[in-house]
């Protein structure tokens, strides 16, 4: 092939396409130096920007293989981009190039630029990876983690890249929340409910609000008791319920967050220490019961003490999400809570809800007096050490 390409070029030496074909032959045979000369000659001979672009990329890759010629590699790729900024190959290789020098802002700039244009599937996946990687290294914050989470769980990646993304996600750790991304996730949801198509995003850390609405099939006008409400929206389990017409009482011990809650939400928030509240009086005052659709207890180590203070003889809860943090506190509190709730007739529907597949931190219960048994069976998760919340809600493949 080399011989033929050479003779073809020699007999028509001003033809840039034949020159380019010869360059490719040399390139294929790992004869980088000669390939460089011919790519450059083809680029000089041609007026076709596409061909010139391919030549400059070819030159960059040949020099890159020769090592320690970074300035030249970068220059050739920039030449390519100058020829056609909308083609993505040179952006991709510059991402790769700058990755080597940990020049993350340049990686991000080229990845984001290239992602605005059409590219092959593989290149698209690689660019998403670089976008995530650069975002992580620039900020070291949740946005980078979210991008890596999306790469691993929401995008189809070729196997080698998938493995790289998984390793990176495990290294930097999962984001502190896994949001429901509306249309993007809708088709993969295992438990659809009425009105889900109107949800563009949710607020819970790990689908608690989606779980409640799923169990109640998108019921409107439900009720909650939210202990440890935190921010009125960020990681909040009732903000989405409120949009479905639910109402209830929320409790938190942070004055700042309670103030924000009052300013931005349409329901009652009580600023108090949930371990000291007289719940009987509270229920009487706010006419809570006899059935409340959803109880959240999310108060870290104090969750078990709060659970013990709830007058379950006065109120029955349809769904309970209970934070036990067994991944860091061990199983004692979790097991104690389970004993209490089992005695009250609650059924453990999703044990050891995890924010990864090895970090269980909540149990989700349903009371069969409130929710039909057929529905409970439908939502029953296996008795695993950890039920990763993403796997619980989403089908494995798009």
């Amino acid at each position, binding site marked *: 092939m*080399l*011989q033929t390409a*050479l*003779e073809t070029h*020699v*007999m028509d*030496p*001003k033809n840039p396409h034949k020159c380019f074909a010869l360059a490719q032959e*040399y390139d294929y*045979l*790992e*004869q*980088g*130096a*000669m390939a*460089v*000369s011919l790519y*450059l*000659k083809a*680029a*000089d*001979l041609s007026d076709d920007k596409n061909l*010139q672009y391919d030549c*400059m990329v070819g030159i960059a890759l*040949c*020099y890159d*293989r*020769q*090592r*320690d*010629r*970074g*300035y*030249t590699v970068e*220059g050739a790729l920039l*030449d390519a981009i100058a020829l056609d900024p909308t083609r993505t190959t040179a952006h991709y290789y510059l991402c790769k190039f700058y990755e080597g020098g940990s020049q993350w802002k340049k990686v991000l700039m080229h990845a984001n630029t290239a992602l605005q244009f059409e590219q092959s599937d593989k290149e698209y996946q690689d660019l998403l990876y670089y976008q995530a990687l650069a975002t992580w290294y620039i900020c070291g914050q949740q946005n980078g983690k979210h991008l890596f989470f999306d790469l691993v769980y929401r995008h189809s990646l070729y196997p080698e890249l998938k493995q790289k993304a998984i390793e990176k996600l495990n290294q930097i750790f999962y984001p502190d929340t896994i949001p429901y991304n509306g249309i993007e996730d809708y088709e993969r949801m295992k438990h659809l409910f009425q009105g889900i198509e109107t949800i563009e995003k949710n607020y819970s850390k790990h689908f608690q609000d989606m779980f409640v609405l799923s169990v109640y099939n998108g019921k409107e006008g439900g009720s909650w008791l939210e202990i440890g409400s935190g921010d009125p929206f960020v990681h909040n389990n009732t903000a989405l319920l409120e949009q479905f017409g639910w109402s209830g009482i929320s409790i938190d011990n942070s004055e700042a967050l309670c103030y924000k809650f009052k300013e931005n939400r349409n329901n009652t928030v009580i600023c108090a220490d949930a371990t000291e509240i007289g719940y009987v009086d509270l229920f009487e005052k706010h006419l809570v019961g006899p059935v409340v659709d959803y109880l959240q207890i999310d108060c870290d180590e104090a969750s078990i003490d709060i659970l013990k203070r709830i007058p379950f003889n006065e109120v029955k809860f349809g769904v309970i999400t209970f934070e036990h943090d067994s991944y860091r506190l061990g199983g004692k509190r979790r097991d104690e809570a389970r004993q209490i709730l089992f005695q009250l007739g609650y059924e453990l529907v999703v044990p050891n809800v995890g924010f990864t597949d090895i970090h269980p931190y909540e149990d989700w219960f349903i009371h069969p007096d409130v929710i039909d048994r057929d529905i409970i069976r439908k939502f029953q998760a296996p008795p695993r050490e950890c039920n990763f919340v993403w796997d619980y809600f989403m089908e494995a493949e798009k």
Partner: protein
Amino acid sequence: MHDLRHHGLVHYALKRGGKIQPITLPKDLTGETGIMNPSIFIHNGKVLMNVRHVNYTLYHSEGKKFPHTWGPLQYLHPENDISLTTHNIMTELDYDFNVVSASRIKMNLDTGEPTWNFIGLEDGRLFSWDDRLFLCGVRRDAYDDQGTGRMEMCEIEYIDNEWQEIGRHPIPAPGKDDTFCEKNWMPIIDMPWHFVKWCNPVEIVKYDIDTRTTTTVVHDQEKTYKLPRDLRGGTQVYPIGEGRRMTFTHEVDLTRDAFSRKDGHYNHRIVVWDEDWNMVHHTQDFHFMGTQIDPTTGYEYNIEFATGMTFLNGEVIVAFGYQDNGTFLLRMPEKLFFDFVARG
């Protein structure tokens, strides 16, 4: 007349029964940087060719549309290494000129640190005198820290399954040896220890390997011919009968672009001398692979260099380097070749 400038001698030859043969060497041996300035020679029935391997890849934008940031002609060695290092790779070819083996010549007589950053024996011409095989090129890393260069004969032999340097003979310039850099002397195949040092006017020198002195044998200012540029050394000098000898010479235009960045252009020419070293014939200047020509200035930009040739089985084989990055063999039937020479 064939356009030897745009299309080149290779194109001319292929249209008339000649052949072009690419030489590739393993990546493990070259790291994919330049292989150039090959010198082919038949020694004891074996077709041998020395190839200069450098640690750079030349970037030369002939058409000037895509100059490197540092200029249109750049020697791109590793960015953390300012040296320009040459290794010599000896290849053995079969009679179809396919590479049978290739290995770096072991320079046993390298001693100490190089004194200059042009390291190694450059542009070695391969030949034998008195059945001793030599590579003769220029070395600049051994004389001082200013890059002073001298021609050097490196005697090589195949020992213990590898090519090894067994002798090193720096060749002083004739007289006081006070010139700065001697290069491109051409060994005269049928005149042991003689070189064509310069072509126009011709200067023949003799090196005495015992006394390590050089004397001028022929140097006649009257034998200066009107040519557009200096004729510099190229291949070995071969006898071609009737007392005549021939060689490929090269000529260089060193230019600058609008920003004063260097550029260059090489031509070649075939020269024929009679037995008294009168230049009785020369061809027009030509390129091997053609070039691009700036239509506004007429400038040409091409880097090529022929440093070896031989005759085998009715063919003339010329080895040349292209853009310092590639190595080729041009094969021409003898009749075609000499017709071309005669046509001038």
